[in-house]
């Protein structure tokens, strides 16, 4: 509707009626305008009218002219509206769709016609626009016309117009849901677009309102009524969760295409947002749980992608992420632990490998769906970042936290079983190492691992290369703090084999593998004092002395103690039926070797020969002669208890299914529970030490702190190792108060001071 305003303004040669009355001139002008309004444009003499307007302006009749013109336009519009538009107004919105369309089409046509007339009038009045309107800063003639149109036509018919448009839009939505295609004809679309265009041309309220009618009046209504429609007019009954979600997708898609073809991009964007939010905070919320189940069970990547990209609403995304975590944790719980089998270690290892398998599955699934990557760190205010790793990590942590000690033990057992196997897979081990960071009680893991590593190394059930690989992987994952002692253990084993090479060559009747261990690195709590006084067979005594000499030559500052408790003797013996390699404890070995020279020995005699204390001797004899599994020795009398006068000899009729036999020293149940208790109190002790150090580190610079703050900070400081409980913390505080590092405030017992 833009007008070419570059018409050259010329001063008329002859000024008609230069001194005539305004009313006379107006009558002439009005006659011309009437011709425009009666569509007799060809009869209009632009030249004359132009001159007339010119002289009116020159004679300072501008104000009067403006007033008359305005009245004239309103009058014309009113009569024209009454004539052509009023009959088409649908009496109510229940009226048929066809009538609504007729109204809209008529309205559009009406506007087109009137606007054209405004333009023609404006052409005549061009001098008036330039000289009077612009100078007075009032709307030019064309705008005067539009404002008159707004006030005379649009405002009175506002509700009819708006409701009619919304009615046809909603109808198209209804149809779209059924037919799943666009139902508006091109003509209809162009009518609507043309009406929206009109709305964008006229201002919303007053002449200088910066909003136009569309954004100021129509759009808010459209948004309100549309969200009402989405909320109420969609029937979800009989839809499964998945179908519901599909339908939502289809609706959004439909709405997007529909609106983008109809209204301006800004406006359609708003509508799509409203639609999505209506779903997300309404129906989708109800079915989210079901959908997550669906998507996780079917491992449908695209569906997951669609679920995560449908909305950027923070709450929705958090619900989604938490739902996924929850599903994964629950699925982990479904892993069965074989509690019946006697092979606990195998069961635990199976449990861990099942877990890691699931973990890997989820990891690749979530990665494939790029899940959570697209999700901005919306939960950052709660200290979470929603990367895939953390979704899966949180799920795993939650799962482990259910029984944190058992989880730590099982993971270590998995490694133990794997490393003892003939060909452990580095890739599989590596995958399980990835789980370590989710353990809350890492110190327990390291303790158990250390125990098991020590057994593997001492009993040569593993290879140094594999162990080194593992320790390096653990170090990468958890930091060197945890692996210092493990590394030191490995180093001991390596230096021991070097030491062996430096031993003098002697008549070797047997293989001798010394293991020189650094006391502090290995998990032995108490060694047997009597080891130093044992009487060894001559050959053993000789290698022992040789080693001592070699060792002292190399490290003369160090003290070497023998820990036979940890030793192992392997003896090949030909029984009547078969020959076997018998691996047994060092003490059992000493007893068995005593029979090399004598066929029959009493308990008392055995004690003299070996110098074993009675308790240990009895334990070993029970293992060799009483326990039904081995029976390497025969006892006379054949009773269950050992007396000093009992006699023993080798059971020549012994036989076993395999060539090599591992004789395990019988352990009384008592010792087992003691060992467990020892281990636990050992862990408690270590934790108290770590906590003490943490408290001192926190309190020293700040001098004083309130109980809760101190606890929180200490907890944070040790969380890489274990979860600090209030109990451990208080034990530590009690200890520090006792040792006078810390003092309670005399006036406020919740406040602690650091004492220098």
């Amino acid at each position: 509707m833009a007008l070419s305003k570059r018409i050259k303004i010329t001063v008329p040669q002859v000024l008609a009626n230069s001194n005539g009355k305004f009313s006379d001139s107006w009558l002439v002008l009005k006659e011309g305008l009437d011709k425009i309004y009666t569509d007799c444009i060809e009869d209009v003499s632009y030249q004359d009218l132009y001159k007339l307007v010119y002289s009116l302006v020159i004679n300072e009749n501008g104000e009067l002219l403006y007033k008359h013109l305005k009245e004239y336009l309103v009058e014309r519009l009113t009569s024209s509206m009454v004539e052509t538009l009023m009959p088409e107004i649908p009496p109510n919105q229940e009226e048929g769709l066809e009538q609504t369309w007729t109204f809209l089409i008529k309205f559009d046509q009406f506007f087109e016609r009137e606007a054209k007339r405004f333009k023609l009038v404006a052409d005549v009045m061009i001098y008036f626009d330039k000289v009077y309107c612009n100078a007075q800063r009032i709307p030019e003639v064309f705008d005067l016309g539009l404002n008159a149109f707004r006030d005379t036509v649009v405002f009175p018919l506002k509700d009819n117009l708006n409701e009619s448009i919304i009615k046809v839009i909603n109808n198209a939505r209804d149809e779209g849901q059924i037919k799943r295609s666009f139902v508006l004809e091109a003509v209809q679309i162009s009518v609507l677009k043309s009406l929206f265009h009109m709305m964008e041309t006229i201002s919303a309220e007053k002449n200088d309102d910066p909003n136009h009618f569309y954004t100021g009046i129509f759009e808010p209504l459209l948004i309100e009524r549309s969200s009402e429609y989405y909320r109420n007019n969609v029937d979800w009954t009989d839809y499964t969760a998945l179908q519901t979600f599909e339908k939502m997708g289809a609706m959004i898609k439909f709405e997007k295409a529909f609106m983008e073809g109809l209204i301006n991009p800004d406006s359609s964007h708003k509508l799509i947002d409203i639609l999505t939010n209506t779903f997300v905070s309404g129906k989708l919320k109800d079915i989210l749980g079901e959908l997550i189940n669906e998507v996780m069970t079917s491992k449908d990547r695209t569906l997951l992608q669609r679920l995560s990209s449908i909305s950027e609403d923070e709450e929705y995304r958090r619900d989604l992420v938490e739902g996924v975590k929850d599903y994964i944790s629950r699925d982990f719980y479904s892993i069965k632990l074989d509690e019946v089998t006697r092979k606990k270690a195998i069961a635990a290892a199976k449990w861990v490998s099942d877990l890691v398998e699931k973990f890997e599955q989820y990891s690749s699934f979530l990665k494939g769906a790029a899940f959570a990557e697209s999700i901005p760190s919306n939960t950052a205010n709660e200290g979470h970042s929603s990367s895939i790793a953390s979704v899966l990590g949180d799920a795993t942590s939650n799962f482990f936290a259910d029984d944190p000690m058992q989880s730590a033990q099982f993971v270590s057992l998995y490694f133990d079983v794997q490393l003892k196997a003939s060909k452990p897979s580095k890739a599989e081990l590596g995958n399980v190492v990835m789980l370590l960071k989710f353990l809350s009680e890492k110190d327990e893991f390291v303790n158990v691992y250390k125990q098991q590593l020590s057994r593997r190394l001492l009993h040569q059930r593993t290879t140094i290369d594999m162990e080194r690989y593992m320790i390096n992987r653990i170090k990468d994952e958890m930091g060197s703090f945890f692996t210092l002692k493990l590394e030191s253990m490995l180093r001991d084993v390596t230096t021991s084999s070097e030491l062996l090479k430096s031993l003098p060559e002697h008549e070797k009747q047997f293989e001798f593998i010394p293991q020189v261990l650094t006391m502090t690195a290995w998990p032995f709590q108490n060694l047997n004092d009597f080891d130093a006084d044992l009487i060894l067979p001559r050959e053993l005594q000789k290698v022992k002395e040789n080693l001592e000499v070699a060792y002292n030559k190399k490290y003369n500052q160090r003290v070497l103690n023998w820990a036979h408790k940890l030793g192992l003797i392997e003896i090949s013996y030909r029984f009547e039926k078969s020959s076997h390699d018998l691996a047994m404890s060092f003490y059992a070995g000493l007893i068995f070797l005593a029979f090399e020279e004598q066929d029959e020995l009493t308990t008392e005699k055995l004690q003299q020969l070996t110098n074993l204390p009675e308790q240990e001797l009895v334990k070993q004899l029970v293992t060799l002669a009483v326990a039904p599994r081995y029976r390497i020795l025969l006892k006379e009398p054949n009773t269950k208890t050992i007396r000093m006068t009992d006699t023993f000899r080798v059971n020549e009729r012994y036989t076993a299914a395999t060539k090599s036999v591992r004789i395990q020293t019988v352990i009384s149940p008592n010792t087992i529970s003691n060992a467990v208790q020892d281990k636990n109190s050992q862990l408690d002790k270590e934790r108290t030490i770590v906590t003490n150090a943490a408290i001192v580190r926190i309190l020293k610079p700040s001098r004083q702190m309130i109980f809760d703050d101190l606890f929180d900070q200490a907890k944070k400081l040790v969380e890489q190792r274990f979860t600090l409980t209030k109990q451990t913390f208080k034990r530590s505080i009690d200890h520090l108060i006792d040792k006078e590092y810390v003092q309670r405030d005399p006036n406020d017992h919740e406040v602690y001071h650091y004492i220098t």
Partner: protein
Amino acid sequence: MEEDAIHDFIELTQCRDRKKAERYLRESHWNVNYALNDFYDKEVGNFFSTYKDVPQDNVVYPPELIHVFDQYSEAGVITFEGMITYIGDLSLSIDDLVTICLAQLLGWENLLAPITREQFLAQWFLQGCSTINEMKTVLADLNGKLEKDRGYFKEIYMYTFPLLVEPDQNKLDAASTIEYWKLFFDQEKKYPMIIDQELLDPWFVYLGEQSENMSVTEDIWKMVYQFFNRFRSLGDVKQGYDEMAAWPILIDEFIEYLQDTVPNF
């Protein structure tokens, strides 16, 4: 004129500090009577609350008082044995809480620390006592105070731990701690902190079940006071105890013990 006033003042008050005498006199415009009133109001019975503040020189102790000291002292001090006899002669026992009041009065900081002549004489001199009978009266007053005055009761409770603990040690053994807790909280119920028997009985049973090697730090000694001060009955504990707060483990575990043993706790 001023010199005379100072001389009189020093003579009468035994105040050795000439500058202090001058100050009191100047503030009273050199009126000796006013200055004396002021001095006695401010210094005696207030400033001189421990024997160390009592003027050492020129004090003439009553011979009866010196006689009492000589009776129990040995080589110029009263040792623990002497104190036991003395306490007996005051018709007290070492297990009476009034004995702790006496210890506090004399500034006896630890049972195994000897009491010096100056400490003994000056303190009783301040109390205006010279004979065993007069001392008994003062102690009877303190006993009354212990039964009525909560602040004093707390003071004596807090004084007990350092008094009992052996030198070079910072802990008390369980048995004697328990005895004293019984004295303070359990027996006779005449002291200002009255604790419901339903709470107190399990406390002593619980302590009895603790290992004999249990020892008590001063922190625990103080926190037990805080605990009973705040929780007088099972109901109080049930309602208000928070094991997440800064109570020591011993008390936390007592609450666990209550939960395990007291029905409906």
